[in-house]
């Protein structure tokens, strides 16, 4: 395995981990699992909590 392979694999793994983390975080915060910020205000079954001006 070349150095290039290792770099590509590392970058792809970071991207995948980041994507999964973002989706899980959105889901846990009550936002829509579709990732669409436009709908996160209304689509969660519970009340959306906004603290200190941050959604």
């Amino acid at each position: 395995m070349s150095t290039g392979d290792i770099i590509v694999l590392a970058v792809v793994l970071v991207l995948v981990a980041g994507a999964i983390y973002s989706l899980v975080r959105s889901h846990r915060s009550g936002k829509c699992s579709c990732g669409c910020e436009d709908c996160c205000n209304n689509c969660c079954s519970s009340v959306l909590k906004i603290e200190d001006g941050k959604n």
Partner: protein
Amino acid sequence: MSMKVALAGNPNCGKTTLFNKLTGASQRVGNWPGVTIDKKVGRIRGTDGAELVDTPGIYSLSPYSPEEIVTRNFLLEENPDVIINIVDATNIERNLFLTLQILDIGIPTVVALNMMDAVAKNGGSVDAKALSERLGCPVVPISALKNDGVKELIETVIATGESKKAPGFVKMSDGIEGLVAQAASELSGKVPEKSARWYAVKLIENDSMVCEKFSAERQNLTGPITTIENDCDDDIDAIISDARYNAIGDIVDGIVVRPDISTSEGTFSDKVDRIVTHRIWGIPIFIGVLAIVFLGIIGFGDIVGIGTYLTDLLNDYIEDPIGTSLVQWCIDNNVSEPLTGLITSALIGGVGAVIGFLPQMLVLFLALCILEDIGYMARIAFVMDRVFRFFGLSGKSFIPILVGTGCGVPGIMATRTIESDRDRRITAMSVTFIPCGAKLPIIALIAGALFDNNGFVALFAYLLGIVVILMSGIILKKWKSLSGEPAPFIMELPPYHLPSIFGVIKGTLDRGWAFVKKAGTIILLAAIVIWFLASFDWSFNYLGADATTESILQSIGQGICVIFQPLGWGDHWELTVGSITGLIAKENLVGTLGTLFAIDDPGDAGEEYWEILASIVTPAAGLAFLVFNLLCAPCFAAIGAMHRELGSWKATGLAVLYQCVLAYAVAAIIYVLGSFIDGKSPEVSGIVMAVIAVICLGYLLIAKDPFLQNRSSADKSEGAESA
């Protein structure tokens, strides 16, 4: 313990704008009633953690629709420390109708007199101090949009909350007050003391929820209520409403100076509305506005739309230097063939194909945000009401459709504003027929690849969405559980105003960011999975750059794609796989095709990828592919939202099946018609399917509504009985 503050008021009076100002949040604000459908909680900036709850707009505390019940239950059951009753100063009498009911609850209340800037601009005025004395609670004039008076409002709210001083109440006529006192005595000890007046008035008014809870007490009041009804020759709820409006007339007398508007010509909004909501010209103007938007963004003939121009630039940039540099870097660093394929196909081909449409999306979002902010979208709902009622739907169904142009999920959730359960269910089942933001890249792809960037393709997609919703109104009403007359639709048209630059830019960037975020999460993950399945066989051997003909995905897709033979694109399993992965998120269809075509031909992106698509399907088949994907089952998130609104998986499953079958039928008809118009011979199976689709749809549309007859007979028999 921190203070709990409720924000309540009529629809479209600026509650969410004020909520955003007080909390620093960025909740969606819309220039039409019914944007807020659930309560939202935030903390008021500059206070000791005071909690602010934004509630859906209501006209009265006797609710009809589910989102109005949310507000009433919150005010009565969750016992907020203070209520901020936001009142639209440009329409003060109607807004005070709710204020009087809120004061009856007995919770400390502050009236925020909003839109005072608009009143002053038109030469009117409201004496806030005198109004405060007459209402018995603090009144603070504000302009939530311009942030005027908001600081004073916060100070007043905190002081009122800390004082715990109950507001006064406005007395109605002596006769009614006597009845209220009697009702309050009946309810003594059974309801919270501070809210006794509210319960008493609602008990007299025949409020269904209060009467159900205190049926015996209501029974004891029947005699005196009947006496008043006989004296006034009217129903008690109408008598109470009249009494409230009489009291409001006394309150505003001498303290409200109305703008000097000629009654014959009206305001600027009235003059514009005479044209854009005209009973004949309203709909052509709406179609014309949509056409200008789409042709300006996508283009037509030799004219390149601004969105298309910017998208071409970005696509070229993604291909070179980004794509070429990455490929060169892989070669220089001895990156293996599979990993090079992963970069060229999944990242550049898949994610790049979706990101390439970002400029077009941004320009379109900007246009839609401006139309929404100036108040035109609300006019479209008004204009469409007549058409919707003709086809058995309420005009109120058009509000969720407007919301659904952004995303189907809140569109489906917005059906909560519809009072009639039947209308609500039909709308929830059909709202996703209108193209949402996620479907725009599919429209742009087909317009770019097969129709030379013709903006009419986008116009066609939106109008088709509306037509199919209307068709669904007719078809679904023939089901027993969904039959019934459309509910009446009353909507207040907000005045036109110049778009707020901050609001429009923010709305556009929010939607654009959501698009980018989706590309970096769901689309990225799906593109990697698609690349893997399309690049390896069942023994997990890497097949190389042009070996998708033996891959795992090919064998699966090939087995399914025969279903789409009658639609003209059944020979290309890539399109079938794209339609399936579109269920995760509709943009994924574009990303999937980008990944698969890039495996076939590494390094292709943007217009070159469009050329591959153009070479494998005819324009008619491409249009059928577009129509099927626009109308078939929405993404999983929207299906989940549909389940929440319909209440069962059985109903959701039937709704999804209905959508898929209808999408298939309409796509078959369009494929065959399109092929004949294009001078090409469609598939024989397509002709057969189209004929079956026309017969079935024709029957469902033309056949008499069996339940309409039953209802008519029932009405007649009721009439006979009363006679």
